């Protein structure tokens, strides 16, 4: 864990997604790894520049779905064959086609909840405090109309002066030093 004091990183503000993606790509080529883009809507090109591909959400969804299917169908079989066997018009106790529908619904229920809450958990949310919220221009623009690149201080290549000079070549609107 990085220390919770001092500088969190340098935050560069851009007006267009193109400038952001370009700066991110160049930062990656320059060897920066601990960095993140902040945009008002998903910018896939920025994820490319960050080399971020694997989300882990589909796997969680799959595991959830399989668990839902086993739980739902298994419960039905146990209830209607062993737990509380009922003779309904002479139908077999193990009426597998009739059990498909609740099993199917629980597959979807578990898969959907896993995808949604898995996404939130993998994102580390809820996290009501974040150092970036200290930057006034971030709060004003990040979810509105501005595009931000943050080079974080715990990157081995980070230096308050050199990193600032590096970012200045992309002529951002502003560069703000963000404190923890």
């Amino acid at each position, binding site marked *: 864990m990085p220390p919770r004091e001092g500088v969190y990183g340098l935050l560069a503000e851009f007006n267009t997604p193109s400038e952001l993606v370009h700066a991110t790509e160049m930062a990656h080529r320059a060897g920066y790894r601990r960095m993140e883009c902040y945009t008002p809507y998903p910018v896939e090109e920025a994820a490319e520049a960050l080399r971020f591909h694997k989300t882990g959400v589909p796997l969680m969804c799959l595991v959830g779905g399989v668990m839902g299917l086993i739980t739902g169908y298994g419960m039905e079989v146990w209830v209607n064959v062993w737990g509380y066997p009922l003779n309904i018009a002479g139908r077999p106790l193990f009426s597998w086609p009739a059990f498909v529908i609740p099993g199917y619904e629980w597959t979807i229920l578990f898969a959907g909840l896993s995808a949604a809450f898995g*996404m939130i958990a993998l994102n580390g949310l809820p996290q009501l405090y974040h150092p970036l919220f200290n930057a006034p221009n971030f709060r004003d623009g990040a979810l509105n109309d501005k595009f931000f690149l943050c080079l974080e201080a715990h990157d081995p290549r980070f230096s308050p002066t050199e990193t600032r000079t590096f970012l200045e070549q992309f002529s951002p609107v502003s560069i703000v030093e963000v404190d923890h």
Partner: protein
Amino acid sequence: MATQGPIHDPEIVDPMIDPRTGEYAVIAPGHNFKSVTQKIAGIVLTANTPWAWVGGLFLAATVATGVIIAVTWLVLKGVGIWGVTIPGAWGFAIINFVWWIGIGHAGTLISAILLLFKQQWRNSINRFAEAMTIFAVCCAGMFPLLHVGRPWLGYWLLPYPNTMNVWPQFRSPLAWDVFAVSTYATISVVFWYIGMIPDFGTLRDRAKLPIAKYFYGMLALGWRGSTRHWIRYESASLLLAGLSTPLVLSVHTTISFDFAVAAMAGWHTTIFPPYFVAGAVYSGFAMVLTLAIPIRKFYHLEDLVTLRHLDNMAKVMLATGSIVAYGYGMEVFMSWYSASHWEFFMMWNRMFGPMGWAYWILILTNIAIPLTTLWSRKLRVNVGYLFFLSFVVNIGMWFERFVIVVTSLYRDYLPSSWGTYRATKWDYMLFIGTWGMFTFLFLLFARLAPMIPMSEIKMMLPQTKVRPGGADAEVVTQEAL
């Protein structure tokens, strides 16, 4: 919604029409990231609550008290206060349940199926269509729960270990219903909320009032627009869409099984699942129009919910309405072709029996009026006509369920057990009360939550195009426009 070809009409100088395609634009020209935020967040964050909204909320609340009164009396007296009796044991409770849940299905169709088909025009209307889904499911869920007679024991429907050692019977479609509807409600709420998290973040950042900052800050969970978050978020949205698509089809299929599994003439048919699903989407799109047309007018959202949206929704109604018409035709055909005396009598009685009027209202409102007029592009972009038509179709779809439930039941196999069905004032009070409840919830949503997804609208703007090498901002904006 593919464009068939350009329409060469030199008289069209409407700036909303894209000259390349002759179609109405999905977003009016001239919008940028900031203007989208201002427009949509402004509706929620303004200090001035419009008087018309307050009046509407008051009126809706007044109508919704019907629910409270009718349910209180029902709990005190029992379902005997309703018109349900033998042989017509299903009455308004099931009609209204199927009608409301069908309305909800358009929201899921818009948010999930159209997302998978990459129909970007859906972005403007998906949020309030999803809200409509949730409020419609709230209204729908109440009816079967009350219809069980002792709603306070409703939890007996759930599989849980209990001292009586009794468990549900999973061969019954009514047990399937519990699973289908509860899953549908849960996934719809989750999908809706997940979709709103980034917009709650925008509202949190722009709110002035401390209570609004707190409220939206909590709801936003600390969303900060990080790219890694966005990619996971997109992945989860796509997965939820992929899961909701079979879910929405399965829910109305399960509801149709409530009928089709029973060995009852008029119900026991294999066409029920597809035709129920198509009917649900048909009525749901009608309800989206009923809501969207006043909202875009009242909040001046004509440049985000454009005539293109209305046109496309009308086309979906035309398609699903045609499937429904095919279903009606096939029902009539099969009752003759089956050579079953009971089926044939049921259909004859449905059309020309004492309740035949309901069948002909259904044909008039669901088939005759919409399916003859919706072919005309002029009428599909005529806002007033579509608003009128949306009511016509919703009335028609209510009568469809009335015809299916009542006319199949009240004259069954044994003439000695024939009866009739007449709804009581308590049936009407509860049904009309749910309209008030639905409107009440929807008005609260329109005031307190972002009705149109800001981030998704921004994704459709030309400024989102990424130029290699980080081209100058001015150039990009110029080229984009």
